[in-house]
């Protein structure tokens, strides 16, 4: 230490100070980025969880389909029920206004992802046929 020129010591310390100050500034920038990242991740996670509760809840969706299938109101009115790889198709025959209301309420109030919904009136009759295709829960 005694053999080193004082100017070199002061210079070395100044450079070290600058280096550390630069490092601190860099770490602070990184901290802000990480904090923003943290907030973004939290928001994305929460949004996914909330949306899944509404549109990805398989239990509620299955329950709605089960309610429709087992309803005494729709006895002998379900023409076809088929389960594909990722879709469920149900055809109903000769539904009057109350039955049609019941089915559409069950389907649209449940977290079912509706792909196709087709109502057509039978000729000269006050009943309608219904075809529904939803994503398999």
């Amino acid at each position, binding site marked *: *230490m*005694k*053999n*080193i*020129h*004082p100017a070199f*010591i*002061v210079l070395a*310390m*100044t450079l*070290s*100070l600058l280096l*550390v*100050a630069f*490092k*601190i500034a860099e*770490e*602070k920038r*990184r*901290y802000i980025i*990480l*904090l923003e*990242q*943290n907030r973004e*991740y*939290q928001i*994305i*996670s929460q*949004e*996914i*969880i909330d*949306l*899944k509760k*509404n*549109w*990805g809840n398989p239990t509620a969706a299955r329950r709605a389909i089960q309610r429709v299938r087992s309803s005494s109101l729709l006895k002998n009115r379900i023409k076809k029920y088929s389960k594909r790889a990722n879709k469920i198709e149900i055809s109903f025959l000769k539904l009057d206004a109350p039955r049609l209301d019941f089915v*559409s309420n069950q389907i*649209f109030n449940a977290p079912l*992802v*509706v*792909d*196709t*919904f*087709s*109502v*057509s*009136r039978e000729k000269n009759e006050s009943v309608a046929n219904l075809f529904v295709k939803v994503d398999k829960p």
Partner: protein
Amino acid sequence: MTLFTIIESIKNRLRKNRAIFLLDKGQSREDFPDEKRFDLILSPAHYWFKREKLPVKYSFQAKKYAPALFDGYLPEGEYSYQAIKGEDGLFYMFAYSDRMILQELNRIGVKPSNVGKLFFADELMKKIDKSFSIGNGYVLVRHEDEWVRLPESMAPKDCIPITAIHDALRNRSHGVTLTRYSHLIPESSFNAIAVPMLLFLVLLTTEWIMIHRQNGELARQNSQIFTKNGLPPTLFQNRAILENLKKIASSQSQIRHVVMCVRRLPLQKNEFLESFTIENGTSAEIKIALLGKQRVNAIRSAWIKNECPWRIMAPHYENGIMSALIAAKGRVK
């Protein structure tokens, strides 16, 4: 073995192999062969020496007494001090002037940067009991445990050359460093600048380390947010999932809104819905039996009033039936 002791042992080994010369008054450049780096033995002409019994245990404590011990004994000037504890429990106190040694080296033509450590003749040669020649017509003679420089004419008969004691000098210790720049800036002024800077440096470094650790912890937390919620680990995957879910949510909400609008259509007696089909969740076709063509506009107005997200497009009326496509704006080509 700590890193410090390893470094010290390496330095000692290098020092033992380093050349050593005596620095006395009146020497010339020839007395110092061209060596890159060498140690110096200061002859008694370059320092003041006292042996004292002090009420302290260690050398660094004894060193604090040195200025008081030499007070009034030294000529005017700035001095450095060294205290070495002897085997007899006494402290060997030395006072020397860096400036005077530097002046002597400059006069001789030796670069101060080539000088490694300075050793005091009294301390270094305490185990040598014979007088020896130091050249330039002088000898060092031990007199009552102190080395005295005398002219050769006064030398005792058993005087030996300096080369004969080189082996004894190999195991040297307790050297001091020559302060080369004390004349540029006083130590107190230098300390006034360097100490706050050092403290500031330590503070900043501590802050840096703390922020660095905090960032590490935050990064670790970030990497666990998704997995904690049972989601895939990467942001890319989760963004894709979110986009897909948002798309489904938006499309399904629109479908439900459209169905609600259809159910709210103001149909009159003998008017009815012939068919209504939504396919792929993007568009719908509607056929309504109406009483007349003028009812088409009424149906359209009611549709707009209900603020439906999809629009009735290109409606046409034929054989009492209004047919139209319902789709979001821009969806249908």
